[in-house]
């Protein structure tokens, strides 16, 4: 960006989240995860390792909390004091929420993480200087830092194993931050194909994230939130969750809503792009 553009358009460039004047057009990628369907099996997380060149850090580094799983399956208990967890465990796949007003974006000194016009929170590895401010300010702690130089670490990608690396995704060296990208390489590929063919990306499985594609219970749906025909749009509408609100009208209803859609830490107003659907438990048994 030239200096002129910088001064003229800075506010525009760093738009907060879509509002009347700058709507998302034609894409806004978003997700819905049904926690009632999610079984916590970890297939999505492994698929993410396969798709996004995530390093396997090994036992010691995992013990040090330096694991690099972009998608972690969290297991919660009820902690109600009973002898057994009689209603099972609660699983939550936690990944980057691709916030519209992302706390990480504003604080990065070099603008290595920023918002794309199609509503992604992008992370530019080669711009990152490793100040780790973004992760410090992330309420979900879903950003992962390359504490070590994994490409040159023993047994991370030894010979032959490195042949599996996805050439569409940069292999990150030491000192850069990384996180879930909603499989941006797939998104850009699909957008590019659609553009070449003079159409929009279809909602028929043309574009799936790796986790969504693997998920055995199809708990994850992903798509274009501004496309009224897309499944994600319909889900968000049905659950009455609006993207750029930090308090949903349905939650104000007396007695609470019987809709399942919610977003984690919505009240903090980062406007996350992932809607979860509450898990349900039968009371008659």
């Amino acid at each position, binding site marked *: 960006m030239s200096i002129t*553009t910088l001064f003229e358009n800075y506010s525009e460039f760093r738009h907060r989240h879509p509002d009347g004047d*700058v709507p998302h057009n034609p894409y806004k990628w978003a997700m819905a995860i049904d926690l009632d369907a999610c079984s916590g099996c970890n297939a999505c997380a492994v698929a993410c390792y396969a798709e996004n060149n995530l390093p396997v850090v090994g036992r010691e580094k995992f013990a040090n909390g330096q694991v690099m799983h972009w998608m972690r399956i969290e297991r919660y208990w009820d902690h109600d004091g009973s002898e057994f967890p009689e209603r099972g465990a609660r699983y939550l796949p936690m990944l980057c929420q691709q916030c519209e007003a992302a706390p990480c974006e504003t604080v990065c000194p070099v603008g290595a993480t920023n918002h794309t016009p199609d509503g992604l929170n992008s992370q530019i590895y080669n711009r990152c200087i490793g100040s780790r401010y973004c992760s410090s300010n992330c309420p979900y702690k879903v950003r992962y830092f390359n504490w070590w130089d994994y490409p040159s670490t023993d047994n991370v990608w030894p010979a032959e194993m490195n042949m599996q690396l996805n050439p*569409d995704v*940069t292999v990150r060296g030491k000192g850069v931050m990384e996180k879930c990208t909603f499989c*941006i390489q797939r998104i850009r590929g699909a957008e590019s194909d659609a*553009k070449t063919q*003079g159409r929009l990306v279809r909602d028929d499985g043309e574009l799936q994230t790796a986790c969504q594609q693997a998920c055995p219970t199809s708990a994850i749906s992903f798509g274009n939130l501004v496309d009224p025909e897309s499944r994600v749009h319909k889900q968000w509408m049905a659950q009455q969750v609006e993207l750029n609100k930090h308090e949903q009208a349905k939650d104000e209803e007396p007695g609470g809503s019987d809709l399942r859609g919610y977003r984690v830490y919505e009240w903090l107003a980062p406007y996350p792009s992932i809607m979860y659907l509450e898990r349900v438990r039968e009371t008659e048994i």
Partner: protein
Amino acid sequence: MHSFLRLSLLLLGFFVAGISYAADTPQSNPVDPGVDGSAIDKAARQKSDSGGSAFSDWITKYWAEGPDNIGPAVKQPIEFPHFRHAGDHDKGGMEINCMYCHTYARRSLVAGIPPVQKCIGCHQSIDEVRNKPRIKKLFAYWDAKKSIPWKKVHDLPDFVRFSHERHIQRFVFQLNRPVQEVCGYCHGNVKTMTVARRQKLLSMGFCVTCHEIKHPVTAPGGIPIGNQAYWYSMRKPVIDASGILKAQGPNDCSVCHK
């Protein structure tokens, strides 16, 4: 002492001002393409090709690659004469379409080097040059079924994912621009070269300058070009005086870096 200080301060000021200006000036980049090929203003193109000012050009180019503004001469296993294949008829060339050999460009990220098979496909029936040294070399590779170890001339860093496909699709197929002109935006006038040399900076600024230009997305009358009346950039499109909707090229970072 004081005058020395004063002078150095002054020089420093000039330097900073010069560099700021240089960086603010669009670097040598193609002209904003019109709706169709006829709309090109040649004069405008020339001006734009020469960049902003000589001084800023010099500064930016010096930073990028030293005093020479063209990339280094690359020694190739076979000195491939681009001018002979792609050059104009009146200059002894055959005006072969770039995409005849660089056939992947329109459907892949990379333009691709043609397989040896392709060279042989034509050359096996061109007897008059069959015994020239370079052709002999070519056949030697073919007979040994070895690929020719061409050197990369335009080698972007690994974290840049430039898509030939999108550029060819947009400019050649959707805007009907001549192929050689489109390729030339980044590769220069290859039809006059033997072994290709890098002509443009290909720095990020080089890319960004072009992507900041507002390109037409509709033809006059509001017909979307290539069915694409939408935009991917940070800024809203604008409708210019002639009623053409113009938008920036895709210019968020993750277009190329992912």
